[in-house]
């Protein structure tokens, strides 16, 4: 009895909630509007990844799903509702947020602007930390390339061939991220610190499927890396300098942008699961 009492006292003193409940949220990156569909968001991560992150589904979890074509603050509104519901309905007091790519920007918007939305403070207060995989924190030269090749500069039917950039791709351009980093986001050099720690994982590999049938996918990423002029090392979509611009280094991975949101080429999900 005395031991229980001391445990209670110590827990209170150390700030660890005795009846705290841990949960994990996964926030995907940009893509199509159909990412607002829960099953599409699930497939983005894959079952193996979610299973690894949640330790065989034993840790309460939410797989956020938002329209992958929208600006970060629009996406953040959708994500915030899902996080808020998860936290309040399940009594989560110790939330770990795992993000991939643009998902890291969406979450950084929430944590940078706590007064922007009434749900944000609850989310921030209940979060332990954020694990950010390959987030284009300073933008992506691949998004710049999409702008260079986009239909907005063209006339006639060629516009249909290359298409128009979505809001989320514009959001990921290096100029746009430089602007938001300078004025509206926290966490980069010279800016206020984020209220919770971000641990980054950056990717430097391209040729993950060299010996497999999907080698042509590697060629796609390597080609993009080459023509977009991604500086330094990169994962095919996001240069490491950009992924490392916010937070504390966790680790680098050879998994490319295709694989670093999955638990296949490298055990990224198992690594994330070590938080629990």
């Amino acid at each position, binding site marked *: 009895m005395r031991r229980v009492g001391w445990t209670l006292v110590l827990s209170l003193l150390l700030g660890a909630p005795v009846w705290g409940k841990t949960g994990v949220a996964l926030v995907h*990156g*940009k*893509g*199509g509007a159909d990412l607002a569909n829960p099953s599409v968001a699930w497939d983005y991560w894959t079952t193996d990844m979610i299973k690894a992150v949640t330790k065989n589904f034993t840790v309460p979890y939410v797989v956020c799903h938002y329209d992958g074509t929208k600006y970060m*603050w629009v996406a953040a509104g959708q994500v915030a509702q899902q996080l808020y519901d998860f936290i309040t309905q399940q009594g989560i007091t110790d939330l770990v947020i795992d993000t991939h790519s643009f998902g890291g920007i969406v979450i950084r918007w929430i944590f940078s*602007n706590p*007064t*922007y939305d009434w749900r944000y403070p609850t989310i921030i207060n209940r979060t332990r930390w954020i694990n950010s995989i390959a987030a284009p924190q*300073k*933008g992506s030269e*691949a998004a710049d*390339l999409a*702008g*260079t*090749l986009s239909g907005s500069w063209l006339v006639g*039917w*060629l516009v249909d*061939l*290359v298409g128009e950039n979505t809001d989320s791709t*514009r959001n*990921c*351009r*290096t*100029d*746009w991220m*430089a*602007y*938001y980093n*300078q*004025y509206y986001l926290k966490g980069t*050099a*010279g*800016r206020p*610190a984020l209220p919770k720690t971000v*641990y980054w994982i950056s990717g*430097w*590999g391209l040729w993950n499927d060299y010996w497999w049938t999907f080698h*042509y*996918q590697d060629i*796609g*990423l390597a*080609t*993009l890396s*080459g*023509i977009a*002029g991604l*500086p330094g090392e990169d994962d*095919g*979509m996001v240069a490491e300098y950009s992924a490392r611009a916010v937070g*504390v280094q*966790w*680790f*680098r*991975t050879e998994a490319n942008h*295709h694989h670093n949101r999955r638990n296949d080429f*490298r*055990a990224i999900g198992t*690594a994330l699961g*070590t*938080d629990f």
Partner: protein
Amino acid sequence: MKRAWVLLLFSLVVTAAWAAEWGVLEPGPYPGPASPGPKHSSKLYVVRAVVENGQAEVVLPLTQPKGALAVVLGDRPQGAAVRGKALPRREFFEPELSAMDLSPEGVRFDLSALAPGEQRLVLSGLAKPEVQIAVAEPESPLALSLQVTPLAARSGEAVVVTAELADERAVRRAQVLARLSNGKQLLLRDDGEAPDARAGDGVFTGAFTAPEVAGFAPVELRVEAGGQRWDGTPFARVATAAVMVTKPASGVAPEGVQVAPEALAVPLLPASGRFRVEVLYAAGQTAFAYAQEEVQLAGEAAAVSVPRPQETWGADKALVRLLNLDTLGVEAELEVPLTPLGPAPDFRVLGQKAQPLPASKAEAARRFGDPR
């Protein structure tokens, strides 16, 4: 006494302010008002051609074929040849590319075997009536570096576009044209006439006036450069950038920012909406602290009091920013000189904040990381 009176007055008229916040920054370069956008370095150009009978012919100016690629996105040419000799071809399909609004399918041709200079490339087996070819020359010494100043402009302010052509030696002849997303064009010059700083240095400059926008909108630029290198061989480059333009709904009132030991009082013009006043405190060229306050206005003027805690008293200047939380524009940005009320902070101490990994994460990094 006068300062105290002004502050008292301001404290009475501050309207619906909340969320005051301040903190120490990891010391970093002081950005100053009107700071430039990022530099975009490009060794890329794009050519287009009409397709006839499944074939298209384009002229590629090559400066360094080694490692160079010609990439066709959104179509699958069956072959490419120069002077009848086929180029190595690889198809790809990467769904990830569609996340960046790029076609997930395409074909790349290796240009390494070609000689520098103009090369006539014939593509065959094309399905679409027109083709766009992106050519990257990653090992070329010739790069176009594009930068826009400022990154954040107000409607009516001047925006300077700088495009530097860096090569082994100065380019012999070049034309550098900026196309703006509002349909206007701007010829950049290297003639030493303002805004160009020096004639013939390979830095081409031009300026335009930030247009009227509805609240806040980017103006995008696509800069195309072409001409002859020092040895007469042709070249082409393209790069894009953007300037973020705000049509201010408010602003800092003409009486300016009032400085007191404990706070800065920032008078705002009448406006409606949510605003954030942010202050960066700096000593010399090092920013080391910040403070901010938010205010909701409904057509009235306001004076916003932003904290100036003792930790900032070593600052000799403050960068005051007025941000519009509805449009996400930058309404105003101005530098306010401060009389230091204390010594400048020891930046070496402030900078020593390396955060160790929690033990579980350190172990996971050892197990799952791929350092090299």
